[in-house]
């Protein structure tokens, strides 16, 4: 406290949420939704437009072992890469908090944050029609993991516009998986994407309970 003026922005002492960003003491449980997509597809934009806090970034360090890791000569060949994940937060009610994590589409990054998909309510696959191919792999991986997801097509001004049915065919999406258009810059539009996921989860839950 006495040394506040001497603190640099990077010091441990200055870190912390702004007081208006603090969760109520009554916040007892959190859930998460993962936003998956390729680089530059608008994950952080979507997270930022609905989040009640300025998006935060968590980083993990990935060590890529070179050849010959078993002998000491291999140590120098290890390279470390820092991979960032942006996330935001929505207080659902006094007790429940929803966190949104925007993660790169490549599966090798998913393992950096252990349990990223474990316990997630579901995922949003954010798609750029100019780079559809990035989404194939993501969709396949989510299906393998039985993570329920919806597809949201982020409408970039200069991106070609296709009918959603055509995109569904191109992405080889199962008939029951919702596909929606969005403008990730807009709060309401991003909110509607999350709503589409929740409605889909609702139908899945009903189906599960009925069976």
């Amino acid at each position, binding site marked *: 406290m006495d040394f506040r003026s001497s603190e640099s922005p990077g010091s441990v002492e200055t870190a912390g949420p702004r007081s208006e960003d603090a969760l109520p003491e009554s916040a007892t449980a959190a859930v998460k939704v993962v936003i998956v997509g390729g680089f530059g597809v608008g994950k952080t934009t979507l997270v930022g437009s609905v989040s009640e806090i300025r998006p935060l970034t968590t*980083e993990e360090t990935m060590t890529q072992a070179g050849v010959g890791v078993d002998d000491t000569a291999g140590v120098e060949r290890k390279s470390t890469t820092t991979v960032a994940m942006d996330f935001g937060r929505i207080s659902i009610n006094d007790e429940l908090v929803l966190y949104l994590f925007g993660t790169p589409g490549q599966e090798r990054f998913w393992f950096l*944050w*252990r349990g990223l998909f474990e*316990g997630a309510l579901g995922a949003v696959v954010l798609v750029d029609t100019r780079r559809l191919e990035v989404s194939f792999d993501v969709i396949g991986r989510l299906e393998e993991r039985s993570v329920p997801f919806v597809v949201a097509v982020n409408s970039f001004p200069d991106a070609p516009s296709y009918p959603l049915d055509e995109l569904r065919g191109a992405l080889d999406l199962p008939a029951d998986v919702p596909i929606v258009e969005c403008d990730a810059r807009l709060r309401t539009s991003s909110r509607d994407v*999350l709503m589409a996921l929740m409605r889909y989860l609702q139908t899945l839950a009903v189906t599960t309970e009925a069976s």
Partner: protein
Amino acid sequence: MNSDEPHWDGGGGPERLYVITGGRSGSSAKTTLDLVTLIVARSGPRPGMQPEQAAIVRICQRPLSVAEISAHLSLPVSVVTVLLSDLIADNRVFSRPPVPPAKLPDIALIEAVIDGLQKL
């Protein structure tokens, strides 16, 4: 916290992370902490606490997720998890686990989220 403590440059180089955790990694820590486990401090920071642990205790006076702690401290989640495991073992903080995956999809929960989103 005192002025003799080094001021970190905010960098997260491997050497610094090694020192903070005493060489332990997240994978060896027996823990069930999730990215969205909420952490709440039981009291304020104590003198003599490791700076990072004192910072965690200080920012967790109100509930904060593991991911947020990681972001505010500019430390990887794997490192924060090790620090939190110690703080939990020492009874400095307690955790509020996320809704367990076994209970998903929980229709009441989904409906609560829909209600919340509608208010946005």
